[in-house]
């Protein structure tokens, strides 16, 4: 991932800068172009989404979307599509007319992806709008409806004032996930009480009194995988935990799957980002 030390105006409510930063921070290295260069690129460079080994060209119903926003949406959807192992096409009984005739005479939504249980991994905000397709002959197009792109725009707009902390959190999440998703690293960490305890953030309650509680959870964690999340999995809150009272904390609710049970998925416990570090969030439950 590239370094995300762009300058931007905190008070200036600059959504384009925010989008650029998110895109830049998120995209793989071969996409790491400078923001200015991205601006100059054609809107018509094709986006694709890869779903279960199929590479599908994307068409945007809102053709006025900027290049940057297109890239952001495509990259974010790619993240949540990355774990789909298989899918089926479901033909709609009645094709849904799009607002505009898009490139390649894409005029209707004719099919949708049937993802089964995997769909439950998707954030509610995009669940219904994800996987709409237009099939023309042998070619399938992945349609990003205006409703879906507007959902992204609203999210970015809602979080504009917290872009700095959100960006910092998002950019460092992958490193944290790379740690907690690797059983070999966890087996190493669990031997060290200090390192083990540093993986947990206690929100609304005190720390556990017995080290065995930490160990048992680390043992369970070795069987699980936190999936890299969509941006919709992020939310901000003022921390009320004993550790970080009053601090702005970023919470993230990725999908958690099991390394041994293909039917298991979960979204609890969430992760928490505070003072530049990610943790597994321990809530004071009833």
């Amino acid at each position, binding site marked *: 991932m590239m370094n995300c030390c762009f300058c931007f105006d905190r008070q200036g409510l600059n959504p384009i800068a925010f989008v650029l930063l998110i895109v830049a921070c998120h995209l793989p290295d071969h996409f790491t172009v400078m923001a200015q260069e991205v601006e100059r690129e054609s809107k018509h460079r094709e986006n694709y989404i890869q779903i279960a080994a199929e590479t599908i060209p994307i068409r945007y119903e809102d053709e006025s979307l900027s290049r940057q926003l297109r890239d952001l949406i495509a990259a974010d959807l790619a993240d949540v599509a990355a774990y789909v192992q298989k899918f089926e096409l479901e033909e709609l009984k009645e094709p849904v007319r799009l607002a505009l005739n898009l490139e390649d005479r894409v005029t209707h939504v004719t099919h949708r992806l049937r993802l089964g249980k995997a769909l*439950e991994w998707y954030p*509610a*905000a*995009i*669940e*219904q*709008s994800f996987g709409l397709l237009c099939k023309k002959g042998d070619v399938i197009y992945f349609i990003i409806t205006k*409703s879906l792109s507007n*959902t992204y725009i609203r999210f970015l707009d809602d979080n504009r004032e917290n872009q700095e902390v959100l960006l910092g959190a998002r950019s460092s999440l992958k490193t944290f996930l790379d740690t907690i998703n690797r059983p070999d690293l966890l087996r190493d960490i669990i031997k060290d009480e200090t390192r083990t305890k540093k993986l947990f953030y206690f*929100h*609304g*309650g*005190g720390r*556990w*009194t*017995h080290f*065995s*509680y930490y160990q*048992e*959870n680390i043992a*369970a*964690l070795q*069987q*699980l995988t936190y999936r890299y999340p969509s941006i919709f999995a992020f*939310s901000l*809150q003022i921390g*009320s935990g004993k550790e970080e009272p009053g601090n702005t904390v970023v*919470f993230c*609710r990725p999908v958690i799957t*099991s390394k041994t*049970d293909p039917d*298991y998925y*979960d979204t*609890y*416990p*969430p992760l*928490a980002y505070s003072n530049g570090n990610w943790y*597994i*969030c*321990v*809530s*004071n*439950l*009833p």
Partner: protein
Amino acid sequence: MKNGKKNAMRSMILLCSLGFWFSALQIALSDPITGSAADKGGQPANTKSDGNATQVNKVYAKNEDEVWQEDKVYRLFDTAFTDGVAIKAELTTTPKPPDFEWILTPPTGSGATIDSPGDLITSLTDIDVPGIYKLQARCSTADEGKTLSIIILKVEFDPTKVNARNLTHADDNFPAYMKCIAVRYNESEKLDLKDYLKISPPDISFSDINNHLFWSVDNQGKMNSTILDYSDNDEAGQPDLGEIFDYRVDLSFGDASNVIDRLIVVIYSPDTESSFANWYADNYDLTWLGELPDVYSTLGSSNTDPEPANCDPDCWENDIDVLGGTNYYHHDASFGMRSDKTPGGHGHQACYDNSTPGKIITSGISAGTADRSHYSKILGADSHMNVDVKPFIWAMQLDGNPIEAPTVPTNLPRPMMHFGLSLNRYLSRRPPRTASQVTAGNCCDTAYCNTHP
């Protein structure tokens, strides 16, 4: 009039044919909607000449909006009507017939009578039930006078179809809503609210009064129909497991400001229903409860840990959770204690009231409950969240509580309003286990306390 404390009257006037002596008779009722007192001084309407008599065929008032149907006047039931309700009945002809009288026929079960009959104002007493009260004007020269049906109406969300609030809390952000329902998500994404109405008397149909009902959802103004359409609530199709759509429905009569009943509607996921049913079925074996330690009957002085530091084993954790009546999982409990983990991985929670020291709450929604999975188990299918907390949230939703767990579910976003069948079922599987108690300052019986660090 006897009922002078009541909202006074507006006019609803009836001219009826009563033969020779009666050329016209006016009956005016209190405003069926507001009960306000202004006499609007109505004029005869829709009259036709028939020889010497004047036939009057329509109940009317000067304010034509108040004329709903001929010969019928509606008024919302009010329990204060038992004290008396004024009916204005005015004979407009002169000379007045000497043997003129009013005859009241109340509905079955009502002992309503005419009080202070007169040719100008009549007061009825003991209007004690919704129903059709027939008021007839008679005199010796007419066999039967015109009859006016005074329909004392009660419209409400049917108590047999919706849940009545049985939980209140100072922090409640919708205290005026006394009823709720939980409705399984349906693919039509529509809910006909009139199906939940009860209209009394039963002789009156919904269509009789439909034009006078106003429906509003989430204060979004008047609805065009009784259909609650929840399709546009959600960009994500149906609610997922543990998710709901919730609405506040206001039912008004006459005008939008006259709210006569309110209802919280919770649309829950079909997955919630099946998951809770499966959980309930799977958790019939309660032998694990035997591992849980005795509870302390009170907290220590100043609401501190009642367990002495030298107890071995130390069954309960030292920290007292200060719930302060604002952790809505336990409704209005003030303090909580948690046990250490038992050998089977279970846990115990005890909740205390706001006494000093806090006294244990042994039953009800505020009591602490047994935990199949100790609270410290946060990861995996057998986590405390999955086996204890989520089923509680499902049960709340199935009972009609408009509550979802937030991202960090340390607390519920609002207090519960109904403790119903599903929450009772939950508590049958995760009961407050408070029969065996130990007093503050003593150690738990080591024969029973087998928690381990």
